[in-house]
């Protein structure tokens, strides 16, 4: 079968250097220059781990004798263009052509490949470029300096009289040039520079220019291999039905009819799921449909969305853990004119286009896994735990990801597949039907928010925000859940950009019955920015001010955000007349290290049906590595956020998820998609994250536009068309 290799970093002969140095350099096995470098761990610092630890490299660069450059790194390509952007950063400082850089996916190894911001091997949180930006540039610049040094020594000239371009060292006075490949072995013997000189933004020739994506050509010809495309020799195909209620168990299975279906080979019955193994997926699906399974629904048999809503609503009436507090909110709110509101947002499924799947071969002496996942070390660890094999006997072939959006930060599907594969002789590909993918998943939490604010002279004098909801971090990264505070649940609420003298944000943890929660594109800010920017709009209306000027007047401490707001207002024609029933709404945000201001334009008909006409977005995400990728991520992020705002809600009845496929869990389609204009602001600041901000911007800008069109304030998602129909046209 066609299969992605699982590369391993080459062994090296290391030159010992001080442990405080950021770079190790040596000769690569088989010739060439080998660099190991470390990316400092912000997450480690955040949770109190000492930063002054021994040098532990987590990324590797090899330059071979033909001048080829290979970077081994842990980030996964899932459509965000990271393989191209990271290659651009290295090619820039190393002064090689982009085509000469090859990226290799790293095998699972937390010690080697931890994401420096998150602390273990993971792609997520819009962190890839932010984490690798400086370390990769320093490593590239060091290698360039050593290659120049090697050439200059050979020519007996000063290194300062030499330069580098397109993979060659050039001595301009004499016109002599040598390709990197001929210098690598000598360069490997040199001492790395103590502080390599980085290029200034003016000297960039790749960063900031649009490069074509490196992963795309195979994706237009059908050659690209996703996890679901793995076909190890003699693979069988399976599909499964897990308990329809979380925590339920199988009582008994009648499989007579299923066994009679041609192609069905085996029925696997585990305590909480049943799978049918067959010659092809269709036979497995027919077999599953023919089973008669009796379930014990267990303790969650009576859970409904209403039960969960009541749990959250009463939780929101309790005092929470203080996330941030400035001034005296209680005093100020007690005296002044007060505005109050509650908001809530629903559970959401991720529904990536590639349904959950995992191919597993459990042998007597080890286990092999083919999957596309954002957390490969966790995939390996869960398989090791289930099978009892040591981790090094679990081989994970990670693949391209057909949509992650947070769903592939979980390994529940891998665990189920390994348990099924333990009962099967030979490799088995387990594919979730779309119904199984939507109904037996982990979901974006349902949040309930309570807000209060006071105004004086069209300025906010006090702001109080209490968030009630599930803690994803407490389950997913327990060390990051400190003193009862989930920093993700309040992200976008605590980093409030407006000037306000009295400010207070609290978090109340309330785990819902019968449903598990996990990250969803845009994470905490997707919920919080909707709530904050909607409530800001309410305050602007209360103050009788225009939504842009109300914000402008209170963004004095946030000049980059203010610049975005001014740009978007001008590009969107803010204030210009609009037809009846059409409204404009604005939202601003400072999350993931990037600043965005967004204006939505939407129309509401007399039935409350919404047409999203236009989105205009001004973005300051610092230095832009690949501008076209940034624009694409904002465009796609907005569509992803709009889909949820317009259509998406996971509900429960009798403990069961009621949505099942794209007919009743709707996605935005091309005929509904608005025009999207993205304007990038030139900046020399460090790069910010860009995979998630667009998703965050969609709902608040839309809801504010719908208010402008109808006078109806939407305090819950998805948008309520009946409420809009009852509103009067603006």
């Amino acid at each position, binding site marked *: *079968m066609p299969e992605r290799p699982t590369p391993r970093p080459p062994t090296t002969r290391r030159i010992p250097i001080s442990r405080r140095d950021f770079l190790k350099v040596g000769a690569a096995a088989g010739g060439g220059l080998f660099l190991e470098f470390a990316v400092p761990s912000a997450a480690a610092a955040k949770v109190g781990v000492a930063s002054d630890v021994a040098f532990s490299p987590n990324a590797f660069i090899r330059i071979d004798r033909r001048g080829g450059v290979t970077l081994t790194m842990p980030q996964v390509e*899932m*459509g965000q263009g990271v393989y191209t952007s990271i290659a651009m950063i290295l090619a820039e400082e190393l002064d090689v052509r982009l085509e000469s850089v090859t990226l290799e996916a790293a095998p699972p190894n937390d010690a080697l490949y931890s994401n420096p911001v998150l602390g273990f091997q993971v792609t997520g949180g819009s962190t890839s470029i932010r984490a690798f930006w400086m370390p990769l540039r320093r490593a590239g610049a060091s290698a360039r300096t050593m290659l120049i040094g090697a050439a200059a020594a050979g020519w007996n000239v000063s290194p300062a009289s030499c330069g580098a371009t397109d993979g060659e060292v050039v001595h301009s006075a004499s016109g002599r040039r040598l390709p990197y490949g001929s210098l690598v072995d000598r360069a490997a013997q040199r001492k790395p520079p103590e502080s390599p000189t980085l290029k200034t933004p003016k000297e960039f020739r790749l960063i900031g220019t649009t490069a*074509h*994506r490196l*992963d*795309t*050509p195979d*994706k*237009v*010809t*059908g*050659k690209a291999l*996703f996890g*679901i*495309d793995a*076909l190890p020799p003699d693979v069988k*195909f399976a599909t499964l039905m897990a308990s329809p209620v979380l925590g339920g168990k199988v009582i008994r299975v009648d499989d007579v009819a299923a066994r009679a279906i*041609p*192609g069905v080979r085996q029925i696997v019955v585990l305590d909480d799921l049943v799978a049918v193994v067959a*010659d*092809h*997926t*269709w*036979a497995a*699906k027919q077999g599953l449909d023919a089973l008669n399974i009796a379930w014990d629904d267990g303790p969650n048999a009576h859970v409904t969305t209403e039960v969960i809503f009541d749990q959250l609503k009463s939780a929101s009436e309790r005092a929470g853990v203080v996330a941030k507090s400035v001034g005296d909110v209680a005093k100020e709110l007690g005296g002044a004119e007060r505005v109050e509101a509650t908001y809530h947002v629903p559970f959401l499924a991720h*529904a*990536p*286009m*590639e*349904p959950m799947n995992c191919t597993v071969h459990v042998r007597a002496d080890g286990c092999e896994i083919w999957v596309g996942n954002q957390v490969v070390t966790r995939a390996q660890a869960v398989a090791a735990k289930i099978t009892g094999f040591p981790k090094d006997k679990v081989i994970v072939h990670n693949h*391209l*990801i*057909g*949509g*992650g*959006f947070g769903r592939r930060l979980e390994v529940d599907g891998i665990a189920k597949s390994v348990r099924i594969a333990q009962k099967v002789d030979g490799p088995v590909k387990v*594919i979730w*039907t*779309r119904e199984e993918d939507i109904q037996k998943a982990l979901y974006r939490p349902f949040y309930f928010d309570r807000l209060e604010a006071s105004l004086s002279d069209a300025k906010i004098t006090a702001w109080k925000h209490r968030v009630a909801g599930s803690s994803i971090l407490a389950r997913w990264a327990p060390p990051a859940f400190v003193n009862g505070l989930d920093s993700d649940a309040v992200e976008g609420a605590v980093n409030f950009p407006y000037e306000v003298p009295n400010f207070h944000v609290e978090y109340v943890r309330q785990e819902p019955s019968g449903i598990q929660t996990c990250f969803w594109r845009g994470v905490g800010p997707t919920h919080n920015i909707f709530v904050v920017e909607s409530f800001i709009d309410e305050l602007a209306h209360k103050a009788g001010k225009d939504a842009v000027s109300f914000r402008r007047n209170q963004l004095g401490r946030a000049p980059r955000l203010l610049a975005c707001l001014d740009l978007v207002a001008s590009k969107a024609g803010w204030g210009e007349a609009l037809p009846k029933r059409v409204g404009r709404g604005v939202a601003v945000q400072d999350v993931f290290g990037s600043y965005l201001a967004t204006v939505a334009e939407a129309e509401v008909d007399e039935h409350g049906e919404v047409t999203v006409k236009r989105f205009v977005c001004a973005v300051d995400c610092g230095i832009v590595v690949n501008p*076209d*990728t940034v624009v*694409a991520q904002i*465009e*796609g*992020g907005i*569509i*992803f956020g709009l*889909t949820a705002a317009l259509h998406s809600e996971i509900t429960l009845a009798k403990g069961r998820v009621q949505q099942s*496929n*794209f*007919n009743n869990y709707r*996605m*935005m*389609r*091309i*005929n509904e*998609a608005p*025009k*999207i204009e993205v304007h990038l602001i030139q900046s020399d600041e460090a790069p910010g994250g860009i995979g998630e901000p667009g998703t965050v911007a969609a709902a608040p800008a839309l809801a504010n536009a719908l208010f402008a069109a109808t006078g109806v304030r939407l305090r819950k998602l998805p948008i309520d068309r009946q409420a809009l129909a009852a509103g009067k046209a603006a």
Partner: protein
Amino acid sequence: MIELRINGQLRSVDVPANVPLLWVLRDVLGLTGTKFGCGIAQCGACTVHLNGNAVRSCVLPIGSIGNRAITTIEGVGATPAGASVQKAWLDAEVVQCGYCQSGQIMSASALLATTPHPTDSDIDAAMAGNICRCGTYVRIRAAIKNAAQIRAARAKDAGGATDA
């Protein structure tokens, strides 16, 4: 045994006539470029051509195909419309995760083969059956228009040939 004409080749498969083409392509013949997304003809990830028309292979029993020509993403580059769509997709950097794009390209190629200069509403009608979760719709629309121009220019160079 059932015989199928796939990308110009005759293939024999030993599976029941009610099996949808999608699973025969993917699981039996190893042509994994055609994707599974929903199983109920709601998302378009499994789109292939039958005599040049876009169809959802997840609900198409192989016994109903007969000798009609099946074209998949692996073979569509050999048609003028398919080649121009693939080029336009790369030029416009349409693709993100890429999983739905086989189906998008098959739907777009079938559209261009019959409608050389599609309007926005032609594009909506032909492409609304294809979901993209990454949200590449803005670029799909632009790329289809570019593909129409690429194809027209190539047809002109080739002396006015207008085959699909």
